[in-house]
């Protein structure tokens, strides 16, 4: 693919994934500060933050005419712009790239909307395989609602999947939509080797686990020998994961006969 050549780079690509309202941005921000305090240069990025397409997506989402396919492709444009112009240069320069959501959220949203899963995966085929994917997992959509309300944010049209006509109101739709999203994420956990973190605990204990796990990714020794982290070790498929520079396209080729 243009722009994304297979190559070795010295940085690390760390992904924070999870459904809406699980605390991804809180943990990304905490992790960034912590990493910088330890002397790592950090680039953080996330969906719709591209210079190219970020504004256009936000504008399109305020209207009522954004179709399903159009939405997926707009997000893919945003992602590839950030991949080529932000993430890759930072990785080459030895940065730790922290990304709040990656292709997995995009794939999950597409699949929940009935989009062909081979199609969406092929579009994102040029993405890099991350060094680690931390999935902040919460068990049920009801728990997400509690968090949403206590944070004062309330229900959002797209986070509630209102475009899918799943329920009479935002609450019903949110529950159904997020339940489906959680299912897709659970399925992807094994497929892509997510490190699962139980996100229903306090911010402090999730952050502590995250730091320990990140330290391992960066080959640093932790501050404490006691390691009661509830990180499920991912399936380590040697051929497909964490080879810096390998692309997901390779991963797909290996997974698909």
């Amino acid at each position, binding site marked *: *693919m*243009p*722009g*994304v050549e297979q190559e070795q780079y010295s940085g690390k690509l760390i992904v924070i994934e999870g459904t809406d309202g699980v605390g991804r941005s809180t943990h990304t921000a905490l992790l960034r500060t912590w990493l910088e305090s330890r002397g790592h240069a950090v680039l953080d990025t996330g969906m719709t933050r591209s*210079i*190219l*397409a970020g*504004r*256009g997506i936000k*504008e*399109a989402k305020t*209207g009522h*005419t*954004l*179709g*399903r*396919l*159009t939405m*997926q*492709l*707009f997000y*893919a*444009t945003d992602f*590839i*712009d950030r991949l*080529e*112009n932000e993430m890759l240069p930072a990785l080459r320069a030895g940065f730790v790239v922290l990304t709040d959501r990656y292709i997995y959220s995009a794939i999950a949203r597409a699949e929940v909307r*009935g*989009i*062909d899963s081979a*199609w969406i995966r*092929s*579009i994102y*085929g*040029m993405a890099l395989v991350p060094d680690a994917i931390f999935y902040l997992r919460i068990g049920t959509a009801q728990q997400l609602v509690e968090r949403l309300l206590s944070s004062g944010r309330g229900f959002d049209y797209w986070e509630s999947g209102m475009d899918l006509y799943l329920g009479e109101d935002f609450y019903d739709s949110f529950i159904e939509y997020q339940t489906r999203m959680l299912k897709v994420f659970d399925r992807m956990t094994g497929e892509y080797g997510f490190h699962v973190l139980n996100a229903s605990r306090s911010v402090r204990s999730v952050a502590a686990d995250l730091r320990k796990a990140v330290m391992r990714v960066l080959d640093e020794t932790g501050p404490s020998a006691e390691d009661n982290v509830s990180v499920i070790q991912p399936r380590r498929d040697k051929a497909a994961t964490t080879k810096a520079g390998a692309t997901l396209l390779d991963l797909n080729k290996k997974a698909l006969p």
Partner: protein
Amino acid sequence: MISYGQHQFPGKLFVVEGTDGSGKSTQLALLYQWLKAEGYPVFFSEWNSSPLVKDTTKRAKKRHLFTPATFSLLHATDFADRTERDIIPPLKAGAIVLADRYIYTAFARDVARGCDRHWVRDVYSFAVKPTAAFFFRAPLNVAIDRIVSGRPSLKYYEAGLDVGWSDDPEESFTIFQGKILEEYDRMVSEFGLTVIDASRSIERQQREMRMLIGPYLNRKKRARSN
């Protein structure tokens, strides 16, 4: 999601393709007038026309923000919006949809820019397969002369200056158009494009188009008022 070739609609989709300056837009406009005069419900859709994507594309072209991959994806976004808004609904309603440039434009341009041929085809696999696709084939020098003499200066992406073949816009444009033409030629058999010799007179080309489209038209679909 229904893939290319799998859609079933009562309407008909005719598309015109070809390099810049091949005269395809003129031909499509004449076809549109004729079909309207004949009383058919006709809907016109052109490349790069999505209101959702327009501002993003305009800004990116002005500020040179595109890479070949994002150029391809943003145009695919535009095309998806066209498909969901302007192409599928009229086809379902039984109308004739005329498209000025279609997925083959992306296949030709993006591959000429260096995108992977299979990847680009995968990205556009949601597209409706046209009833007939006309490729207006003009010799390279004719097309280039028409464009270069017709406007004050070539635009950055239009000339393929982003790829870095040459710093000279005219030279870059010539290389780019040559590669595009090669891709079109390759697609003739791959997608069954109907080749129209664009070096002949406008009238002759239009007669040929009308003759080729005739058999697909359903005379009963014409409006009663005519």
